[in-house]
């Protein structure tokens, strides 16, 4: 029986083993996300962030330390509020948990902050622009970006990878919502 099989047997049989297993995932990945939020914020050092939010640096440090803090939902909501992001806490299958762990990367973890959360701030914008028939425009289009201008106007930017198609290389369309 290999190590994995042994561990699976323990997980099936022992509640304490299951608790320890789940805790180990959360106790690493939550501090990692907290650190990532800080590093990608306007206040990337603990010292700066502590000054900004009026907290002790030691408290912020502890929250980023794997296993150190018994983080409550209230604390997580506080961290979310500091960084102007939302928070999802949900139960999941073990398989889903491991898949999430494997796909997670602190370097790539990025959350849209409230000030930039256009879909939250203006829910209608994407519904408006989705009525345009983008697919029929041309072959070779590889990048399309929708940029909201104001309540009634939108800007469509399209880029192509076809070298000869200079006219379409950087195309901008302005339309009315």
């Amino acid at each position, binding site marked *: 029986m290999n190590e*994995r099989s042994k561990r699976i047997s323990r997980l099936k049989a022992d509640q304490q083993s299951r608790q320890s297993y789940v805790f180990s995932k959360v106790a690493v990945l939550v501090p990692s996300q907290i650190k990532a939020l800080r590093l990608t914020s306007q206040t990337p050092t603990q010292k700066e962030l502590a000054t900004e939010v009026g907290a002790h640096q030691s408290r912020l440090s502890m929250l*980023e330390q*794997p296993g*150190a803090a018994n983080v409550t939902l209230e604390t997580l909501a506080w961290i979310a509020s500091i960084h102007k992001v939302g928070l999802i806490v949900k139960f999941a299958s073990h398989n889903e948990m491991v898949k999430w762990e494997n796909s997670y990367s602190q370097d790539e973890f990025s959350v849209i902050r409230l000030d930039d959360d256009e879909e939250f701030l203006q829910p209608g914008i994407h519904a408006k622009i989705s009525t345009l028939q983008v697919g029929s425009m041309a072959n070779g289009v590889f990048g399309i970006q929708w940029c909201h201008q104001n309540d009634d106007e939108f800007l469509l930017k399209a880029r192509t990878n076809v070298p000869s198609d200079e006219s379409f290389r950087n195309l901008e369309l302005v339309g009315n919502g």
Partner: protein
Amino acid sequence: MAIGGYLKYNPKVIYCGSVHEPALWTFFDYVTKSSNPIEAWLSVQPEGVQDLFNGLIKDNRKIDDPKKWGGSRKMKGALKESGIWEYRIDYVNVQYRLLGIFGHFRKQAIFLIGCTHKMKVYDPHNCLETAIKRARAIVTKEEGVFLHERKVQEDI
């Protein structure tokens, strides 16, 4: 250059990158012909501690800059001079530490010794001296000292 240190992570050095840089960090245990002291130490710690270290390695191997690693701390004095850093996790009011150095090649980290730390008491008590000794043994490629890759389990 500090023992086992990476010039890449020296703030005075401008690193220009490399196309040969591996995507993930690889972690090794310091081993001798007769034993793997890292595995021997870790295997007798609570299951929760083993899980936490495994989780930490799984997460940190994807983080390019080790200064951003979770649970990692710089050391002071002779340990710093030897290029030694530590992974620290807290579990049931005890600090568990794995001391390590960077390897000779890019994105390689080597664990030297595991210990606990509570109320200024290290267990084993001479773990800091042992770490320095082992770091030196690796740098000087001492006979009978090897590196054993620590496998990361993706499926659990």
